[in-house]
């Protein structure tokens, strides 16, 4: 096992872009090499050691044997765990935008909150967030037909708007509420929302969305029948028929607006 602990030296005003902080990037490096990794803050190119303290094992290892612990406030540090294929990133506080984007494997666990674009264009692996997540959890990049294609995201608190937009595969589980338009243009992923949301599944063509709380339903959704699941009654909808969608939307009975 190779563990690296990274801690910010000060609170950041201008956000930091740290796509180099991922198990794959740190696995082969020695501590001094890690400390001289390139990190950007605004238009300034810095070394990691200019902004963070890095401690831990020195010897090279494989990505799956690497655990990175991020201690302190990382809410303004973006792109943590970008493209990781294995290993673990433990964020004790909150994490900035684009955490775990293009992730293919491994575990990114965030005890606090996560900013927007958590797990953007994710392929595989697992992301857990103890607190709340921002907008575009598991979504795609502007103009792309496909966002998240695989992997799992679980959010303990609530999530922002456009959850899983352009979802092509994989699953997203939000225990709390989700903002507007979760699962827009869903083409085959699975979304579970423990709380309430607004206009789920816009232009969904495939996949499943389940809402335990309240949900405002789009006109393109046809009521099918009520089904029993996990000891509860759920209203099943088929849609989005504006796109001849074959998606399924389940809303717990007694909770639709």
């Amino acid at each position, binding site marked *: 096992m190779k563990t690296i602990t990274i801690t910010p030296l000060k609170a950041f005003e201008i956000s930091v872009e740290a796509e180099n902080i991922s198990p794959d990037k740190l696995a082969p490096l020695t501590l001094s090499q890690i400390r001289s990794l390139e990190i950007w803050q605004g238009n300034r190119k810095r070394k990691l050691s200019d902004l963070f303290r890095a401690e831990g094992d020195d010897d090279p290892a494989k990505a799956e044997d690497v655990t990175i612990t991020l201690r302190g406030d990382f809410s303004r540090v973006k792109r943590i765990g970008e493209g990781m294929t294995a290993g673990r990133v433990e964020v004790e506080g909150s994490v900035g935008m684009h955490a775990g984007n293009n992730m293919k494997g491994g575990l990114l666990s965030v005890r606090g909150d996560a900013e927007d674009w958590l797990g953007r264009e994710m392929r595989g692996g697992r992301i857990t967030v103890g607190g709340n997540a921002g*907008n575009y959890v598991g979504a795609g990049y502007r103009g792309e037909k496909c966002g998240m294609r695989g992997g799992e995201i679980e959010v303990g608190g609530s999530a922002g*708007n456009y959850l899983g937009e352009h979802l092509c595969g994989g699953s997203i589980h939000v225990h709390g509420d989700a903002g*507007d338009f979760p699962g827009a243009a869903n083409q085959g992923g699975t979304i579970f929302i423990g709380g309430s949301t607004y206009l789920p599944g816009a232009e969904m063509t495939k996949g499943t969305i389940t809402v335990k709380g309240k949900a405002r339903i789009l006109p393109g959704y046809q009521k099918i029948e009520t089904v029993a699941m996990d000891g509860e009654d759920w209203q099943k909808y088929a849609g989005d028929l504006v796109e001849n969608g074959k998606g399924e939307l389940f809303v717990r009975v007694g909770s639709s607006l």
Partner: protein
Amino acid sequence: MKAIMISGRTLAQGAGCECKMSPDFLKAVSVCHLSREDYSSLGLSEGKNVLLKNDFGQAVLTPKVDAGLRQGMVFIPMGPWANVLVGPDTGGCGTPHFKGVEVDVDATDAPVRNIRDLFRGLWRATA
């Protein structure tokens, strides 16, 4: 009274938007249009102003009846006064929520702040 606020262009606002420090602009944009019913139910009349409040701020404006508005809706010409009531969050897409903003509306005797007053003390304000 609870209401939904929308902000937008008007002819007078447009005509004055290149001379925002002028009294014309002040007159054109520091107004709040209300439906006839809301105007009377709030007991507004000549000389009375209207106070709009929400989590983001508050603004005192000159009330005006607008037959085109339905009950429960208010319209403020786009500009510094309207934007006191608009939140900074863009919901992930870069554009703030300028229309459909929840506000509390009440009559008031407080005066409408002029534009310099609205921005006084803002430069390098630490608060």
